[in-house]
């Protein structure tokens, strides 16, 4: 019997009177890139917050690698192998680029020196090694996004959650980002990516789920999603055109 | 039984006065996310100012209430730009910077008062001091406490009317709820902050008159009122102004009951235990409406 890497079963979350996630069930298979799209407010970021343990679920369960992770604290979930980026990069301001990544490697290394080496390698991977010793306050937006990614990779995740990484990037930067993400996908690393920009999602993902008002209204391969009438309806005829 | 009712009445009377210290403080946090560590010092300065006015100009201290409001509102207006600057620096956590800045202000105020008046205790009296009203022979209403109560309720009413029925009030509440949107809609957030802070300073300074008349005036009295303000605001929920009314009465009753039935020495301990408990169990206040 095949275990899904990630499985959410009927999860629900409300804030005050607003239901952010309503009876959502998803499965994500190992080694794939899974996309999640939906209009603003459809619950995409909330979903990430629930998976990583930032908010407690009202009801339902989440399984990761066959293990029930409902109710665990974020740092425990990070140790189990889920990493995530924030929409607005949540960097540690008084540290260098290298040090930011180092912190996230602590759970996978046994000494400061080892952390430093691991962080260094990750920076090389995302193309930030030239800026390793720079203060985080002095780097560009694109670099901040790379650093955010590097930091998520520092925990050596087997599941990586990317939250709107393309926001604020110009077309050139976006192309580079797409290439970078594509290069990350391996048997060992599964990626869930939340995005607004259709073209990005369509070009990267193996499967896509569409959320609206906290519910899944469609889940399919990219080719069929664009023709799905529910999906089109959700976007109310507005078509999100890619920036190029 | 009589004692119990008397105790309750005393508690309510004091609670009414304390509301004044709490509402300004709460609004200050709600609108600008500033915890003014100097709140007790504003009360102390108000008390001393009324003392000075009585000494040099005579008359009953209560006459000076509106003047004190104006003086302290003015002071608040002058100080506010500095606070704004402290809170808006990009480098550090703004709430912390505001805290430390007002902490510095409180040290200055306390140090200044100590330098001028030393550790001596002063007092002021009004025509109401020492008088009391008897209700059906059962309970006594000390006149000054009753006046304090009326003052508290009156000020609160005016304050609420201002907040809920005037244009400025609406703007202030909007800014408290969502600063960014308010500023997008054209509100000068900085100016509103200044208005709120002046209001707060004026109210708190003004309450010093009655507090000074009721209790003693000394340079280190700030700590006590800081405690009371914290207590009230924690129970009410930080930033939730209507809750302050209930919380102030709870405070008054708690102090009164503990003072009579357990012993005055345990007053502050009981206060701290309750406050600590609330902070740990319902950090957003008893009604869970805090920020």
């Amino acid at each position: 019997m095949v275990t899904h890497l990630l499985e959410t079963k009927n999860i629900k979350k409300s804030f005050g009177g607003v239901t952010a996630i309503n009876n959502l069930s998803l499965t994500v298979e190992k080694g794939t890139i899974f996309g999640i799209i939906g209009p603003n407010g459809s619950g995409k970021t909330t979903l990430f917050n629930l998976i990583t343990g930032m908010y407690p679920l009202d009801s339902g369960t989440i399984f990761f690698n066959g293990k029930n992770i409902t109710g665990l604290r974020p740092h425990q979930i990070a140790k189990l192998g889920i990493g995530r980026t924030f929409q607005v990069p949540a960097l540690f301001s008084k540290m260098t680029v290298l040090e930011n990544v180092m912190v996230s490697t602590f759970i996978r290394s046994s000494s400061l020196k080892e952390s430093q080496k691991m962080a260094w390698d990750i920076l090389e991977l995302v193309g930030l090694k030239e800026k390793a010793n720079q203060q985080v306050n002095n780097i560009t937006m694109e670099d901040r996004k790379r650093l955010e990614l590097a930091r998520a990779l520092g925990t050596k995740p087997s599941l990586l959650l990317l939250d709107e990484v393309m926001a604020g990037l110009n077309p050139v930067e976006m192309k580079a980002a797409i290439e970078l993400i594509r290069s990350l996908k391996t048997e060992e690393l599964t990626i869930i990516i939340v995005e607004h920009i259709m073209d990005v999602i369509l070009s990267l993902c193996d499967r896509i789920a569409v959320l609206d008002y906290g519910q899944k209204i469609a889940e399919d391969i990219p080719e069929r999603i664009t023709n799905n009438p529910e999906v089109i309806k959700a976007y109310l005829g507005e078509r999100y055109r890619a920036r190029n | 039984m009589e004692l119990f009712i008397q105790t309750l009445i005393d508690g309510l009377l004091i609670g009414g006065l304390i509301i004044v210290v709490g509402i300004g403080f709460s609004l200050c946090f709600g609108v600008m996310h500033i915890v003014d560590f100097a709140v007790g010092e504003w009360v102390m300065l108000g008390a001393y100012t009324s003392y000075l006015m009585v000494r040099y100009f005579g008359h009953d201290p209560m006459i000076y209430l509106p003047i004190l409001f104006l003086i302290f509102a003015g002071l608040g207006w002058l100080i506010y730009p500095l606070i704004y600057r402290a809170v808006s620096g990009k480098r550090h956590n703004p709430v912390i910077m505001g805290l430390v800045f007002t902490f510095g202000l409180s040290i200055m105020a306390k140090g200044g008062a100590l330098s001028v008046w030393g550790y001596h205790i002063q007092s002021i009296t009004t025509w109401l001091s020492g008088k009391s009203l008897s209700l059906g022979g059962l309970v006594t209403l000390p006149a000054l406490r009753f006046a304090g109560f009326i003052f508290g309720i009156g000020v609160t009413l005016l304050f609420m009317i201002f907040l809920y029925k005037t244009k400025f009030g609406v703007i202030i509440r909007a800014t408290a709820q969502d600063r960014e949107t308010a500023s997008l809609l054209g509100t000068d957030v900085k100016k509103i902050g200044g208005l709120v802070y002046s209001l707060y300073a004026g109210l708190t300074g003004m309450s010093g008159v009655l507090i000074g008349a009721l209790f003693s005036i000394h340079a280190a009295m700030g700590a006590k009122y800081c405690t009371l303000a914290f207590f009230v605001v924690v129970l009410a929920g930080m930033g939730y102004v209507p809750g302050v009314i209930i919380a102030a009465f709870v405070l008054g009753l708690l102090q009164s009951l503990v003072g009579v039935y357990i012993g005055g020495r345990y007053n502050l301990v009981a206060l701290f235990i309750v406050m600590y408990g609330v902070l740990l169990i319902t950090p957003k206040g008893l009604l869970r409406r805090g920020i």
Partner: protein
Amino acid sequence: MEFQRETYSSNHKTSFFNLGILIFMIALLLFLPLFISPLWIRITTEVLMWAGLAQSWNIIGGYTGYLCFGHGAFFGIGAYLTGLLMVHLNWPFGFCLFISGILASFLAFFIGYPTLRLRGAYFAIATWAFGEMIRQIATILDITGGAFGMQLPAYLNLPFFYYIMLLVTGMTYLTTHLLLERARFGYRLLAIREHEEAAEMVGVDTTMTKIKAFALSAFFPGIFGGIYAYWVTYIHPDSVLKADITDFMVVMAFLGGIGSLWGPLLGAIVVQFIQRILWIVWGEGTFYLVIIGLSICAVVLFIPNGLIGLLEVRIHSPKESINFLMKKFKW
């Protein structure tokens, strides 16, 4: 690879630099009493104590970013504990000091567990309340002598207190250097300070890390309290548990530079200096408080990184100053 070596070795150099300064200063202070008058020995002892206290506060307030406004309580508790243990149980002085430190840590651990869940302003208020409450309790309890306090037997002579203060302060700074400047623990605290949510997301157990920092920050004040108790021989709630003690810790750390290794020392020296200068000029008085308050406001407005920040040293480690100095001397 070259880049990496430079990064690592400059960290190494910073580490040795700081350690070197620490050893040098301790060595200097070891022999100082031979050259100065008893008055100055007494002053230095006091400065050493405050430098240690400010640094202890710095651990939770500066490095972790949780401003504790009741930290003086640990000092007072240490004072009373040491007094009680020695008077009633006749335990040796050093041992009592150690126990006081440990018990203060336990208390911090216990209090920290619920309190550190609160953020920013709430934490400040809660700890402030905690500090005042401890003072009230000391005033009420009979075993502590209530409002009248405890009289302790005159114990040892001045040089002894000088050296023991030096020892404990030295240990405080060494501990801070080892655990906070050059270890993963320090990085974790900094991460918590800068962005607690993100820290949690990358695997830092923020709850336990904060509590450990809080417990550590209470250990040395507990010991300092014990030393102080026997130094002044008479303690009462208003002398060892007053809010001023916390105020001073906060002021010194802020003035010198929160989150830095040498900031608290610098702050302690400056504040004590100001205090004494004003006492000489204006007579024993409280005016220095006004200056202190003014300084804090000035620091917040103009130099949030403290006086250390003025020396262009980065808050986390003086790496840049090394490079800066090295460039200057063309090594």
